[in-house]
């Protein structure tokens, strides 16, 4: 039933996409497309959510006579797929709602509207696919539609390059996945997931599959060092599409990884966990350090996606390590933490991108150095963005803290792991997780402070207007979800239990019935957390303090010029900028991570030329990994280019030579 509903929603979305091509010139099309996407998202969300809550153990299958004639297209909806459907359709519901308002200002609707529902349909189909062919086809469909959306404003500076790099990386990732499924299916070509599940690959083969799956899914998710396209492409798209790409599409990639490694590949080796943990830890720290160095609001958010994907992969790596050692309860805890973070990140990242989109729509600026003081002009957007910032910085009582807390609890279970390598890697990953959480808080103080607080740095920020009601509605739905998932995490953890049951054959104890809605992942004597109680206590203490002081002490208030140690300067340039805010952190970490180098020139006394400050930073991942590849490709292209100007005789000689060579190869072969 649920599967049929979701598939019908997908069909409706694809139909809408076709209609939008025809009616791209009409002004009503925008309203129609987002309206239909909103309805389809709501239906699919309801169906998948109901499936996850009511009948989580069951699985529904369907087969459609499309695709390869002897294979058809297999679809299957189980608990894992249902969970990710909830994430996808929650994102598509809110971004369609947001699009109803935001899309009206779209300068080239013909480039956005047809692809938007197709992109949503593609993501839904990836999660439902039950054979390798359908999976790869829909995966590529998802990539291409999102690429088209990235290229919607292709005339803007840097967008064409972003799209180009995205296209290359997406093709590369799909190639890796193609080989993954080729290896999994074996020589007999059993491409249905059922057939793949039934066979157990050899150790060498599964190592190759893991590597390829990490490359294929990791490049889409933005795992370091395959992340380079992400901070270019995600910000280039319209903001509600950025939200979908960062908040949701990266989760589809996580789904791909979980499906292949946890479900299809068979029992894991312990070192898989070590590899995944290392990559996750590096992504978490490098992602947030990159983010700290940005002053483009949307790019900052995109780098934070890299960080959060790292956190998710830390959880997945722990789950693999535990499962390889047959510690199923601990594995269930780690996987629950990772999946809960998947949900949480999709919620707060969409929220933050919506906020950034509202700022972009109101001011036309993404550069934080030109903004400031927006809390006075856009008070509601500011509240929503602040809530999202608190959630992503893993601060209680919001949801980001709960999933990181669960990850920490899983790390604290890992001294029992027998392998020596893991004993070193797991605490290091724990330290990296702690470091990234602390740095994320610094980064969002910077982002919120530079954008919304202080005084406006440009006239665009001074004259900004609050965004429209649709966008605000979308943002506040997500704010509410951030808070609810943070203070009532027990219900969400229980909803994840069927997934861990499916993948690991173990689950956390039911949480929702516990006294006072406390969550107790392992045992009450070990650790527990109660977001609701904390929230109520903090709210009560704050309110009581304020009430007592206002009632009995003083409530007089006077407005005056800022004090600023007696020398206030009214010019907004005297404020701390985003760049100066990050400077101490850059001093501490940047020398190591970016080879950051500052040069200050202060003219000697008596000379009147201005002082100069020059900062150079290098992206080491790009320099080490990508620049050499680029160099090789350019070198080869230059050499091949000379072929173009050969004479006809030379061409004929080459053709003849090639034929002779091939014949010789054939002769030797037999």
């Amino acid at each position, binding site marked *: 039933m649920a599967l049929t509903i979701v598939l019908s929603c997908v069909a409706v979305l694809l139909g809408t996409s076709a209609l939008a091509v025809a009616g791209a010139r009409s002004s009503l099309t925008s309203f129609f497309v987002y309206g239909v996407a909103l309805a389809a998202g709501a239906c699919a969300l309801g169906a998948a959510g109901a499936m996850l809550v009511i009948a989580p153990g069951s699985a529904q299958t369907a087969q459609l006579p499309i695709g390869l004639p002897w294979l058809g297209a297999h679809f299957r909806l189980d608990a894992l797929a249902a969970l990710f459907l909830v994430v996808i359709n929650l994102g598509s519901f809110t971004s369609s709602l947001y699009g109803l308002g935001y899309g009206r200002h779209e300068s080239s609707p013909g480039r956005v509207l047809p692809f938007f529902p197709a992109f949503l349909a593609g993501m839904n189909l990836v999660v439902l696919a039950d054979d390798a062919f359908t999976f790869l086809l829909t995966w590529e469909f998802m990539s291409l539609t999102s690429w088209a959306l990235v290229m919607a404003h292709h005339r803007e500076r840097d967008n064409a390059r972003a799209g180009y790099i995205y296209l290359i990386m997406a093709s590369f990732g799909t190639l890796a996945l193609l080989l993954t499924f080729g290896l999994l299916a074996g020589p007999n070509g059993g491409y249905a997931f059922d057939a793949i599940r039934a066979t157990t690959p050899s150790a060498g083969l599964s190592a190759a599959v893991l590597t390829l799956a990490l490359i294929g899914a990791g490049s889409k998710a933005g795992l370091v060092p395959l992340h380079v396209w992400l901070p270019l492409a995600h910000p280039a798209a319209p903001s509600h599409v950025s939200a979908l790409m960062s908040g949701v599409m990266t989760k589809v990639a996580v789904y791909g990884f979980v499906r292949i490694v946890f479900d299809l590949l068979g029992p894991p080796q312990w070192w898989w966990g070590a590899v995944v943990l290392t990559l996750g830890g590096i992504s978490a720290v490098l992602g947030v350090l990159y983010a700290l160095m940005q002053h483009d609001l949307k790019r900052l958010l995109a780098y934070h996606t890299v960080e959060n994907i790292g956190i998710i992969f830390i959880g997945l790596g722990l789950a693999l390590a535990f499962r390889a050692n047959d510690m199923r309860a601990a594995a269930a805890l780690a996987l629950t933490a990772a999946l809960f973070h998947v949900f949480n990140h999709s919620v707060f990242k969409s929220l933050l991108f919506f906020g950034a989109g509202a700022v972009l729509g109101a001011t036309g600026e993404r550069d934080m150095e030109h903004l400031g003081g927006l809390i006075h002009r856009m008070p509601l957007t500011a509240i929503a963005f602040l809530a999202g910032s608190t959630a992503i910085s893993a601060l209680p009582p919001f949801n980001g803290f709960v999933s990181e807390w669960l990850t920490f609890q899983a790390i604290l279970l890992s001294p029992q792991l027998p392998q020596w390598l893991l004993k070193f890697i797991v605490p290091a990953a724990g330290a990296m997780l702690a470091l990234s959480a602390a740095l994320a808080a610094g980064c969002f103080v910077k982002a919120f402070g530079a954008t919304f607080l202080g005084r406006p740095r440009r006239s665009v920020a001074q004259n900004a207007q609050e965004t429209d009601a649709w966008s605000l509605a979308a943002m506040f739905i997500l704010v509410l979800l951030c808070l609810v998932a943070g203070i009532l995490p027990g219900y969400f953890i229980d909803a994840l239990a069927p997934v861990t049951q499916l993948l690991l054959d173990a689950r956390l104890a039911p949480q929702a019935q516990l006294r006072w809605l406390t969550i107790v992942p392992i045992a009450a004597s070990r650790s527990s957390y109660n977001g609701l109680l904390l929230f109520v206590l903090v709210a009560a203490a704050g309110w009581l303090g304020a009430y007592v002081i206002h009632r009995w002490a003083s409530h007089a208030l006077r407005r005056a010029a800022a004090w*600023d140690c007696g020398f206030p300067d009214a010019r907004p340039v005297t404020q701390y900028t985003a760049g100066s805010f990050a400077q101490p952190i850059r001093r501490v970490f940047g020398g190591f991570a970016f080879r950051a180098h500052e040069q200050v020139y202060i003219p000697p006394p008596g000379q009147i030329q201005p002082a100069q400050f020059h900062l150079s930073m290098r992206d080491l991942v790009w320099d080490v990994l990508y620049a050499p590849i680029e160099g090789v490709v350019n070198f080869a292209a230059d050499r091949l280019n000379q072929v173009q100007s050969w004479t006809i005789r030379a061409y004929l000689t080459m053709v003849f030579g090639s034929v002779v060579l091939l014949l010789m190869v054939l002769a030797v072969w037999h």
Partner: protein
Amino acid sequence: MALIHDALVQLAQLLLMLALAPLLTGYIRKVKAYLLRRQGPPLLQPYRDLLKLLRKEAVLADNASWVFRTAPYLIFATTLIAAALVPTFATGLLFSPAADLIAIVALLGTARFALALAGLDVGTSFGGIGASREMMIASLAEPAMLMIVFTLSLLAGSTQLSSVAVFVQGPTIGLRVSLAMALVALIMVAIAENSRIPVDNPATHLELTMIHEAMILEYSGRHLAVIEVAASLKLLLYFSLIACMFLPWGIASANGDLAAFAIGLVSYVTKLAMGGFLLAVFETATAKMRVFRVSDFLGAALMLGLLATLLLFVSQAA
């Protein structure tokens, strides 16, 4: 009945924290003054300062937003709740299941987040300098703190503070290298988190060296009073944390009788007096370091914490 008893003990500890916090600050100031052969302000001066501030009108910068006005109360509330979760004279607090050590660290993180935002709100250069440096310090102090938490919880098999205290009191603990390293790291973190010398100077208003004071430069009246209370509470919290995790002797159990509570209270106050004295001596004997040396100081704390955790991971063979 048991619930009422627990609630009373919890309330008593919360109020004790609130009442003692300014006294501890005043006490440390007094000891420091004696060490410098000054008379120093009376012990109760912080209370008088607070009352005076509370009764004055608050002056707000023209472009201050609601963030600036609500932040003090949020900082106060989160710090107070975090402090209420740390056992003082008795373990087994009523609210203890609501938050373990990791959550207490995160609650303090929420308070810091609010304070840094408030520092940026008015848009002055000093607010920015303070917020920026505070977040740099936090980016190292918070992971170091979590590594210390890891060390203790790996030993005690629990992240609950009460369980840790009971475990350290117990017979199985023995002398451990990890614990020593964690203690040193915790003291370093506590110094940084509470803006004490050598990281920051609580008495300074010299512009370029301020961190904490720079963030709260624009505050006045009741807002300033609330922030000052929160700062003293945080100092008391770290003292209580060290006392509870490393010197839990004398602390009463949750279902103890009045005599046990009295012993717990006396030993708690004694520990505070000793700790405050040591801090005052240390602060008088050290010079403040340059801001960019702080990263070395805290990096050492982080490495100590990580090393302590690693040692425990390695020594727990399966």
